[in-house]
């Protein structure tokens, strides 16, 4: 099926980010939905699809709960058990292209900071065995993946540091960002290890917040007030065998997502004006720069150290500050930022002539997904 420019994002909304005490995850989700509806110039009665994300380690975020709270009886609803924006977005695209729904709201809301959600647990297949060995938090496997990259390609800690330093520079131009204190590469190198070879800025800080997106068909998109962000291409793949896959921490299967994305869309990395990479750790940025073909595999370190991803660089990357500096929203704010860049709404951090953006997400060591969006059909 040719899905090029058949669907478009016509609304994005978010709550404040950081600490939102005294509110449930579902209440936060509802506020985000209200913001997105207003941005799209519609009311809740205009929505006939609802896609939600269950919260990690709680039973909140389920469509039955949020539909009930919102007073919605949509034709179609679904809940994903993990919350990376692209996976929800792709489900929305499918719902619209198949006629199950015509206008879908996608939402992620969480109170995981105030609720003190436990992120110390190990992740991925074989998690029990990892936890027993003390491999706690995603920082452990990410540190292993980066050390292996260093061993194979000579990548340095300072080169990796440019991921966080560049994103902090972008964050300083984003009022929504939680972390805006200046951070030079020397500041980065002077910090203590958390899980060597990774330091604090290589890891996200858990936050509360919500993000919602309104997706509709290209025909309907033009009736909304804001410039549509058309979906030009999507791709996914899984690695559900987890630790049975040798070298799985390097996530080589992301290269297959990229291949599928570029071949089905007819586009290539040089067409991308701004790039968004879900950055639960800085190492994921390094990996995806390479697997998506923005540089050769193994060349990510020098590529970053040349400053290409910084403000003014040739490849603006995570221009919101990403999750490392803006807020840890499972990639949803990266997606929202891509849409806002295409609309030209980003003020001092606006990328000149941003017409095509790519948003890449992963779900731990288990899934990858990517979407190309454009202001043109």
């Amino acid at each position: 099926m040719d899905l090029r420019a058949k669907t478009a994002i016509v609304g994005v909304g978010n709550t404040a980010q950081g600490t939102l005490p005294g509110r449930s995850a579902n209440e936060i989700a509802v506020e985000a939905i209200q913001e997105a509806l207003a941005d799209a110039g519609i009311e809740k009665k205009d929505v006939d699809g609802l896609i939600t994300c269950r919260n990690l380690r709680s039973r909140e975020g389920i469509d039955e709960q949020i539909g009930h709270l919102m007073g919605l009886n949509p034709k179609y609803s679904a809940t994903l058990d993990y919350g990376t924006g692209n996976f929800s977005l792709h489900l929305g695209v499918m719902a619209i292209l198949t006629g199950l729904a015509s206008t879908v709201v996608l939402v992620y809301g969480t109170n995981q900071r105030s609720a003190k959600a436990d992120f110390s647990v190990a992740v991925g297949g074989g998690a029990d065995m990892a936890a027993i060995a003390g491999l706690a938090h995603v920082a452990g496997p990410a540190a292993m993946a980066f050390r292996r990259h260093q061993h194979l390609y000579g990548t340095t800690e300072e080169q990796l540091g440019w991921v966080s330093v560049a994103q902090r520079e972008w964050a300083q131009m984003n009022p929504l960002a939680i972390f805006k204190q200046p951070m030079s590469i020397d500041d980065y190198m002077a910090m203590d290890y958390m899980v060597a070879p990774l330091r604090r800025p290589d890891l996200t800080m858990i936050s509360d917040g919500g993000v919602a997106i309104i997706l509709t068909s290209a025909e309907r998109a033009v009736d909304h007030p804001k410039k549509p962000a058309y979906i030009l291409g999507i791709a996914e793949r899984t690695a559900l065998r987890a630790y049975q896959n040798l070298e799985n921490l390097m996530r080589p299967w992301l290269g297959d997502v990229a291949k599928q994305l570029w071949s089905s869309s007819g586009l290539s990395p040089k067409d991308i004006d701004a790039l968004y990479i879900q950055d639960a750790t800085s190492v994921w940025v390094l990996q995806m720069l390479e697997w998506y073909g923005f540089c050769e595999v193994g060349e990510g370190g020098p590529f970053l150290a040349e400053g290409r991803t910084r403000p003014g660089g040739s490849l603006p990357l995570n221009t919101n500050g990403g999750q490392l500096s803006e807020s840890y929203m499972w990639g949803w704010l990266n997606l929202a930022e891509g849409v806002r860049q295409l609309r030209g709404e980003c003020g001092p951090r606006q990328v000149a002539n941003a017409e095509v953006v790519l948003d890449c997400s992963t779900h731990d060591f288990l899934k990858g997904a990517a979407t190309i969006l454009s202001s043109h059909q």
Partner: protein
Amino acid sequence: MMAYDKPLPDLENEVEAPHWQAAKQGRLSIQRCSQCGYLRWPPETICPECLTRGGDWVDLKGEGEIWSFAVYHRAMNPVFSDEVPYAVAMVRLTEGIEMIGRIAGPPDQVRIGQKVRAVFVPVTDEVTLVQWEPSA
């Protein structure tokens, strides 16, 4: 033996129990499919290659090399605070599978490619963990 307050295996879990029984006796044991011979780790009820249920338990040599490792300077799970800095490695076993395990001893001398062997570390009266130490 001192109280051990860190994550422990569920010895009641029949799928994993043979691994822990073997570790207590100083053996590194994992499942091998009785039908197709596929070695599987972590333990599961079904062979992921041919979908045969069950499987035999076989002892491995307990030898491999370090594929990569992480050094915890901050205990991301606070119960490990008394052990920092400690190293956890992905070990590539000579039999071809990968296994996550703690490096026994200080992390300073650990490097990628290092040959390691399994050591068996009792942590409670019932549980012995498999850890890894340099063999060369």
